[in-house]
């Protein structure tokens, strides 16, 4: 029952861990933006596409939101070599997270576009706005305000979700924690410090995104 905590080794390795935190943010950032591109295309296809396109997007969303990201990346990493496609761990993780976030972001973006009411667009037409003006002054502000909060939550979710890269040997925050803890055998201390870094990281991200959202889109963001 008696266990002495020793944080000294972990503190020494703090710069190493923080570099991993930067990589974590990079993974989340890249897969967020690539996922947004997929999500935008998916949302447009779902709202304006033909029947076949809509069905395809629906299948994509159902498949990816109903299976774990971990197993999807397992599939990319271990199963694709069977058919001749060999991926680096980092590439596999990025592709997996991007496809996964694309599926969720399609839903978020679609609900944002759907929230614009017909009456608002009719009003814009009545006021004599051109198509571009309608998009710039009526549709975009409305969509931005609606989807900003879910997008922030999703980004935080991605920061946390990128920790599964550790399983494939990507050296982000959790991966580096595993590296350190196997060397110094101070697992509880290492992982508590890493947990604290994750909390700090997501707090900073939430607060910064919340301030930006309040300033730019007048979106009401709850940090707590």
């Amino acid at each position, binding site marked *: 029952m008696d266990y002495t905590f020793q944080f000294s080794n972990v503190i020494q390795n703090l710069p190493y861990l923080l570099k991993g935190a930067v990589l974590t943010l990079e993974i989340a950032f890249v897969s967020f933006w690539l996922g947004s591109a997929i999500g935008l295309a998916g949302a447009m296809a779902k*709202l304006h596409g033909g029947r076949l396109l809509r069905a395809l997007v629906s299948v994509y969303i159902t498949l990816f939101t109903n299976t774990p990201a*971990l197993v999807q990346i397992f599939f990319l990493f271990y199963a694709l070599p069977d058919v001749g496609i060999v991926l680096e761990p980092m590439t596999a993780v990025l592709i997996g997270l991007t496809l996964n976030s694309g599926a969720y972001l399609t839903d978020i973006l679609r609900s944002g576009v759907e929230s614009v009411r017909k009456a608002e667009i009719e009003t814009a037409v009545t006021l004599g706005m051109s198509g571009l003006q309608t998009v710039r002054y009526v549709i975009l502000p409305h969509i931005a305000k609606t989807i900003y909060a879910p997008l922030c939550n999703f980004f935080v979710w991605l920061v946390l979700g990128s*920790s599964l890269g550790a399983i494939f040997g990507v050296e982000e925050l959790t991966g580096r924690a595993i590296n350190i803890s196997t060397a110094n055998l101070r*697992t509880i201390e290492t*992982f508590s410090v890493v947990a604290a870094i*994750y909390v700090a990281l997501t707090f900073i991200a939430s607060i910064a995104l919340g301030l930006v959202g309040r300033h730019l889109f007048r979106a009401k963001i709850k940090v*707590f």
Partner: protein
Amino acid sequence: MFDLIISQAPRFFTWYTFVFVLEAMGRTLMMTVIGCSVGAVAGFAITVIRSTTSNWMMLFRLAVTVYVEVFRRIPFLVILFIVMYASQGLGSNISLSAIATVSICLVATAFLSEIIRAGLESVPRQQLEAAQVMNFGFTRTLFMVLLPQSWKVILPPAFAFMVMFIKDTSLASQMGVVELTFTGKVLMNRGYSPFLVYGVILAAYFALSYPLSKFGAYLENRLGSPQRRKSVERVRANSGPEKRELVG
């Protein structure tokens, strides 16, 4: 390219594999359901503590708030590692699947308490004031005014959270808990092609998650008040292809 897969398929798709995967599905589902049920009860307790106003509860309120904020911001994988090593460091000898279930409880408590809190806050304030005027106590207000009105709002997202967590339990395979993903590893160690194995595992997760998420959507539709359903329909009706003509 696909020769290996085709040659292995008859050996792979046997009754034995089917039962093996089915058992693992049961275990995955069990861990999630137990974890989320405990989490729902504990989360409710946390919400009750957070909604108190007396001074002497201040410390509890603070502790509980910090708990919720912290556990929603740590990756499940890291929580799993901490719980596992902490239980080993304390010298306890509980099984790995128990450790995974405890981790699920910890996370589910934090998330579900937020869902429950949002649900309770969705009750109009006038209801609370009316309860106060009628001299209802704290417990009576909670169980006779707040809960009967808010459980319909709480249940769908709570259910959706549980369905989401079925997928997150796959991370527990990394500690050696024998659930669905770990079963995939076992099958792969038997020499089957990963293409087959992970294909089947993905299908198994889908078979678990898809009906439940459909049921969740049904629940949401069914429990929503007619007014809310109408507003959802209005939103749906106003969007869609016909809008394009107006924009362009």
